[in-house]
């Protein structure tokens, strides 16, 4: 099958690649770029394990073709920590609040939460639950995930308040 050249930004770095048009973005990320953080849980666009950020929105990368990401700006879980390795408030909060067990949903869940907190920096519990409704978790029962996201929101708000002062 003929391949198409695409160029995009992934976690701040320029990437040029050849892909088959039918290559799903999740397979491109995991297999061609070896970014195995995002997972495949359902393949029918229901579970959100494959969630990555694309041009400022959360998307299910199992339901996007890699060719459609030509020119896009992508962020995956691997690009969430600061360049010096400092973890993002969400990454810390998920650990602190026991927001994960097997960890399989976690990269997608955190990336979704990351975008959610930019859309709504102070979400209520109900808003968090609604905001992560595209991400299934089989282990945690969500309660601690919701806590973790709330706690991270508070940490981020605290940090930006501090910076402003």
């Amino acid at each position, binding site marked *: *099958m*003929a391949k*198409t050249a695409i160029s995009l930004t992934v976690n701040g770095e320029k990437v040029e690649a050849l892909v*088959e*048009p*039918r290559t*799903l973005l999740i397979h491109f990320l995991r297999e061609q770029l070896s970014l195995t953080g995002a997972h495949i849980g359902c*393949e*029918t*666009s*229901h579970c*959100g394990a494959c*969630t990555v950020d694309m041009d400022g*929105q*959360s*998307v*299910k990368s199992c*339901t*996007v*073709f890699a*060719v*459609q990401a*030509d020119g896009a700006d992508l962020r995956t879980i691997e690009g969430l920590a600061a360049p010096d390795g400092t973890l993002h408030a969400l990454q810390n909060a998920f650990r602190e609040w026991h927001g994960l067990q097997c960890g399989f949903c976690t990269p997608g869940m955190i990336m*979704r939460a990351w975008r*959610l907190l930019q859309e709504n920096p102070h979400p209520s519990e109900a808003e968090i639950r*609604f*905001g*992560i*409704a*595209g991400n299934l978790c089989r282990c945690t029962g969500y309660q601690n995930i919701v806590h973790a996201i709330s706690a991270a929101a508070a940490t981020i708000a605290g940090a930006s308040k501090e910076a402003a002062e």
Partner: protein
Amino acid sequence: MIPAAFTYYRPRTVPDALSLLGAHSEEARAIAGGHSLIPMMKLRLATPDHLVDLGAIAALKGIRAEGGAWVLGATTTQAELIAHAGLARALPILRETALQIADPQVRARGTVGGNVVNGDPGNDMPAVMLCLDAALEVAGRGGARTIRAREFYRGAFITALAAGEIVTAIRIPAPPAKAGAAYVKLKRKTGDYATAAAAAMLSLEGGRIATCAIALTNVAPTALLAEAAAAGLIGAAPGAAAFAAAAAAAEAITDPAADGHGPVDYRRRMAGVMVRRALAAAAERAGG
């Protein structure tokens, strides 16, 4: 769950898209948000040889008011629709509906045009467009035409759109004065297609229902306009008795399938319950 191979095009203009679709006619498909099409392709229930991505065509984007009417570009995503403050004020039922479709990630990609054109009885926007009497603006190699939503749906996945045509925009007329509208959906869980859902819009004059439209989702091979149900309400005082009669009339035109959402009789009755609830909410919003 791997799609079959295809060639991919990403035109920048409507004429380019039309000529690509025309050149490959039967084997070509337009793709907008891809959130109905790609899942079908992964199951190999759809195996287009050529995929024409409408995503890069600027002319298909955007939401604008034209007089009292609103025009939604076909590739407006559900997320963009939800975020549009002016539209939310003018036609809150659209935002209310969009928020009940799927989940945040699907709404980020899925388009209003795709939802309306897809022809899946489970899609939520068609009933709303029937209720609001929207018109679809269509472009084809033969030129442009307009199709009323009320004349668009022919059967499951069968619409009035001819091969090679695309929908460029959806035009929604201004609602009657003092109208209230609501979309009420019963589903098994967040993100699910409707067990049954109803869109209702009514306006009041002197405490009586002056105009009314009702439409139903996922209780027949296509979305349904419940004309008799709505007609029976004209002149009636809004209230449980009148709404129950309308619900019964709406139930009578349903033809639901038995599936995981439930058996036929249940889904039919749920259509009625949704109609009652949508009418009650619409009446309240209309100031009744």
